[in-house]
């Protein structure tokens, strides 16, 4: 009976085997379809909508493109958005990289604790975290109370609705995105490399700049790209902390599409955001790769 079963089993087995080859690309099909439906099609729609002149989307023409790029206000919004992204990347790196170094030097138990603290913010909603920052940054907030108590400034600092305050909040909010790829790369680094460096006479700083930093660069670059893309498009945080005084592209898109109902202009702003975020990400990747060659030398 088992012989018969084996004989029968042979044919379907071969059937599966022949199926397996073309299935390799077929396996990617669902993802490709989802990608097409939810990214490519909307993108094409966006492009199409931006090519209309009026709000009812009836007259073809590039009036909104000319309006957007002819007006210094929109240029400034675009510039501010990209600037916000880079400031957040710099702040998260300056604070996050030392945290990663502490993680690297910790015992496995402390590494788990640090990892948990890093992931913790991801478990709370962005809205909640952003409102918490209002409490921290406000006139009567934690920071101002500390500043006044220390006598650093006679009057409360204005932090809400300023770029500084927003960058502070985004630094905390986006920190997990920097640290997760960074820590994953760092924990895969051979600890003997740092010992080898020390045994060869290198100081802690030399080891940091010649060994640890270059080898953790892929994780740092990945983290910076995520932070940049996420902070430039962080509509809730930008809006809640920046208010109406600070206008960034996401807020502009929202106003144009859902308040003013100028869909063509909103499309132009959206495409501009897409392109500038992509350019920023590419720039970070290029800088990272360049500095890698530089650090190694």
């Amino acid at each position, binding site marked *: 009976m088992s012989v018969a079963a084996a004989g029968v089993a042979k044919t379907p087995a071969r059937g599966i085997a022949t199926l397996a080859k073309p299935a390799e690309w077929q396996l990617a099909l669902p993802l490709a379809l989802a990608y097409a439906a939810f990214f490519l099609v909307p993108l094409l729609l966006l492009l199409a909508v931006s090519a209309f002149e009026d709000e009812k989307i009836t007259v073809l023409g590039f009036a909104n493109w000319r309006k957007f790029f002819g007006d210094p206000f929109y240029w400034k919004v675009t510039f501010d958005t990209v600037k916000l992204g880079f400031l957040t990347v710099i702040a998260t790196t300056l604070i996050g990289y030392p945290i990663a170094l502490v993680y690297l030097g910790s015992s496995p138990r402390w590494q788990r604790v640090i990892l948990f603290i890093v992931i913790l913010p991801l478990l709370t909603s962005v809205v909640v975290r952003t409102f918490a920052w209002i409490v921290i940054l406000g006139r009567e907030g934690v920071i101002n109370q500390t500043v006044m108590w220390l006598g650093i400034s006679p009057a409360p600092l204005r932090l809400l609705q300023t770029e500084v305050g927003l960058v502070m909040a985004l630094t905390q909010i986006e920190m997990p995105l920097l640290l997760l790829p960074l820590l994953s790369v760092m924990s895969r680094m051979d600890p*003997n*490399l740092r*010992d080898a*460096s*020390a045994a*060869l*006479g290198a100081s802690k700083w*030399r080891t940091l700049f010649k060994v640890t930093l270059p080898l953790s660069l892929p994780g740092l670059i990945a983290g910076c790209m995520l932070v940049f893309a996420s902070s430039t498009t962080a509509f809730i945080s930008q809006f809640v902390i920046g208010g109406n005084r600070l206008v960034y592209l996401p807020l502009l898109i929202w106003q144009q599409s859902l308040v003013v109902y100028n869909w063509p202009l909103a499309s132009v702003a959206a495409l501009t955001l897409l392109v500038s975020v992509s350019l920023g990400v590419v720039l970070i990747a290029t800088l990272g790769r360049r500095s890698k060659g530089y650090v190694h030398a």
Partner: protein
Amino acid sequence: MLGDILPNKPSSKGGQVPTRSADPSISVRGHTVDLDAVTHRYGTLTAVADVSLTVRAGEIVALLGPSGCGKTTLLRLVAGFLRQSAGSVRIDGKPIDALPANQRNVGIVFQNYALFPHMTVADNIAYGLQAHGRPRDDVRKTVERFLEVVRLGEFRDRLPRQLSGGQQQRVALARALAVEPTVLLLDEPFSALDKSLRLDMQIEIKRLQRQFGLTAILVTHDQDEAMSIADRIAVMNQGRVEQFDTPINVYDRPATLFVTGFIGTTNLLRGKTLHSSNGTTTIALDAGVQLAIASERHFAPGTPILLSARPEQLHLYGEASADRWPVRRRFALPIGPNTMHDLETRDGATLKIVEQRIGAIVDATGEAWCGLRTEARPSLFESSSQP
């Protein structure tokens, strides 16, 4: 000039003091390393317990022991990656306990080589020189010289991952040697290499060590490796040094039962002491024989003892005699030119005996008598010292 220090010519004067190099920039003088009652604890676990060793200048000492006995920990203490809980490490008589790893000038080759993966072979070798602030020209020349020394000149621009295991190890050696370390530390340097390459690298390390007159400490759990490379072996067990002696003494005059069991194969036979005097101890084995054994140790009459005899120290006979004991042959295995006999004594102990095959037909089963070979010198241990 390089010809002088490149020992491609077979060294006819083996065992000689390291060849004096014609190149004055290569240090040839070895340095001494002393470990003084060194203890290291990880939390409550004592990984190294009260170890005292003296490594002479230009000597290779092997730390040999089973996995987890504290060899790597001891090496890391010398390198300065760990700070010992108690005791002191001295190089050339000067304590180095207060020095961080980067000021000890100790060369180390890791088990996994730990080459900098983002640097070329040449950059790896240059790393330590640059860290020592050597002038650029000096760095370049030294790198060239060491590429020669380990015969990797044509691979200078390769990345470590583009090299074979043996080549990676040579880079690791060159990198460690380029800064002229006082001591070379090697942590299981051959365990990642396949067998045929191992011997080559063992010879290479021995050659470099001779060439530079280096003092070296080699960690291994492979007794053959320790026996062939080291001038002296420190056999470790559970954080302690059980014996520190020459390879021959460690093999032929094991200090403890652990050493006997760990190095080589041995047969253990139970018995008790009858009397012990003038370097000879007479014992009665449970296997049914009385033997007089040469032994420096003195045993009180009646002491339960274990006789440890290597397979090559025993011989099988066809007939009985006063200094032979009866055994039952269980089976025989041909191993190359030898036959290994598996035997059982009257008291149930298993014996292994290796005899050369000389063409005669050998019984694989049946009764026989076993005795010590004439020149054989087995070891005696108090059986309470059994682990």
